[in-house]
């Protein structure tokens, strides 16, 4: 993605780093003749077709022995990446959203994974938001934890303390947190003690996604990191993508600029259908988010 930062900004950043380094490096380690690095410029880009790629990331609630592609989706995030600008957007969909599932009538949106697998779930979410995903990735709790462990954990900013009797009795404090595999899973799943339940949980999932992207971006220059990550994805995610395409997507993900990530959660009212609590999604908002982000993977407002 060309022009990720204005070059002047990059140079200024490098200048700040050098200035800080000059302050912290002991004098004995500084040789004036080695301060000849006068200018460093950076160019980067990743070519994917199309320029804006949409992925539906699904966390399945499959228990051991169950087929994770035909259970219920616990986490639903529609993610767009713009390889030309480095922007990315995530639109979270509450799993209890009451929607029309093609061929199956109305039901909770996550039931479409059970009925028709990843393809039908992608179509159902696509119909709600107005963006049909190019790819659907499905993972399960255990695999998700393994992937987080594989990248050395992630950092998130938690806006409010919360806990869960079963998943995290000691709770997550407010502030910057480092999450290992289990904690990242728990942080993404807990909803009962969150003020706005499923909506806040979806926002927490987006905080985890930001943490994953930041970690991948930071470690991408490490020899073999991206390659190892692709193997982990192949082992731990359902995807029908060939490994070459996964490799390209992984490199594109590493080039997303954190400051250009925008996120929103589809809102809705709480209803009751046949005794079950459901979310009645604000379809106008869902479509507006889709319209905003479709072409450039950028959300102006939620």
């Amino acid at each position, binding site marked *: 993605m060309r022009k990720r930062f204005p070059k002047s900004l990059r140079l200024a950043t490098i200048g700040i780093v050098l200035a800080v380094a000059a302050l912290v490096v002991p004098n004995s380690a500084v040789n004036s003749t080695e301060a000849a690095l006068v200018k460093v410029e950076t160019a980067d880009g990743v*070519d994917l077709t199309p320029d804006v790629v949409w992925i539906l990331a699904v966390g399945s609630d499959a228990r051991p022995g169950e087929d994770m592609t035909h259970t219920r989706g616990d986490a639903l995030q529609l993610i767009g990446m713009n390889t030309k600008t480095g922007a990315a957007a995530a639109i979270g969909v509450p799993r209890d959203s009451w929607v029309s599932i093609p061929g199956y009538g109305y039901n909770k949106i996550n039931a479409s994974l059970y009925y028709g697998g990843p393809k039908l779930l992608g179509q159902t979410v696509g119909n709600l938001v107005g963006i049909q995903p190019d790819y659907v990735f499905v993972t399960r709790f255990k695999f998700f934890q393994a992937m987080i462990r594989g990248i050395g954990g992630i950092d998130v900013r938690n806006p409010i303390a919360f806990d869960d009797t079963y998943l995290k009795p000691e709770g997550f404090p407010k502030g910057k947190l480092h999450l290992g595999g289990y904690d990242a899973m728990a942080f993404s799943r807990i909803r009962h003690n969150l003020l706005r339940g499923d909506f806040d949980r979806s926002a927490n999932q987006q905080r985890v996604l930001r943490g994953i992207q930041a970690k991948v971006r930071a470690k991408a220059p490490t020899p*073999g990191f991206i390659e190892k990550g692709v193997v982990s994805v192949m082992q731990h995610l359902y995807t029908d993508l060939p490994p*070459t395409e996964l490799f390209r997507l992984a490199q594109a993900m590493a080039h997303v600029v954190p400051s250009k990530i925008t996120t929103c959660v589809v809102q809705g009212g709480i209803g009751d259908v046949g005794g079950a609590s459901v979310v009645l999604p604000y379809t106008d908002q869902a479509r507006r988010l889709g319209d905003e982000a479709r072409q450039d993977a950028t959300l102006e407002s939620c």
Partner: protein
Amino acid sequence: MVLLAAAAAACSGSDGSSDSGPGDPAGSSATDTPVVTDVAFGKITGALPGAAKAELSDQVQEVVDGWFDAAYLGDGGGGGDSWPGFTQGAAADARADGDLMSNAGLPAGTEVEATRRAVKIDVLAVKKRPVGVTAHVTLKFVTSQDEQQVTRIGGRLYLTPGKDGWRVFGFDVTKAAV
């Protein structure tokens, strides 16, 4: 070779480079021997038989050399043919950063000589076949504009195989005076 001799003098101390790239032995000797690309493997993820490794090494070197020669060491740096091993989209991205991804900014007629060229290859292999490569590249050169000044190109190229062979679909490259 005058440029090489000047470069050897300029490179006689540490260049202060800290970029993690291919091996970067101290200094280059001023000889008449053309500088050839030093090719090595870094991390190989997955199994890759020896024959496939050798073939991959040749193919990646051909792409990297094609870029080095066309973009920095040839006559037409910055022109349409500076990125022969790049995909169409990646070449367009590179062209947008032409001063950096080539020597487009140099005045016509400027002589350029390489003092170091190297590539270290990280491989993703699936079912004993390479499916993705991160090529860590280093190119150092001097020009007749300033024979003491060594410029270093470093960073990563991302390649995947296609019907036309291995192609660069992405890059993360720095250009620095060292």
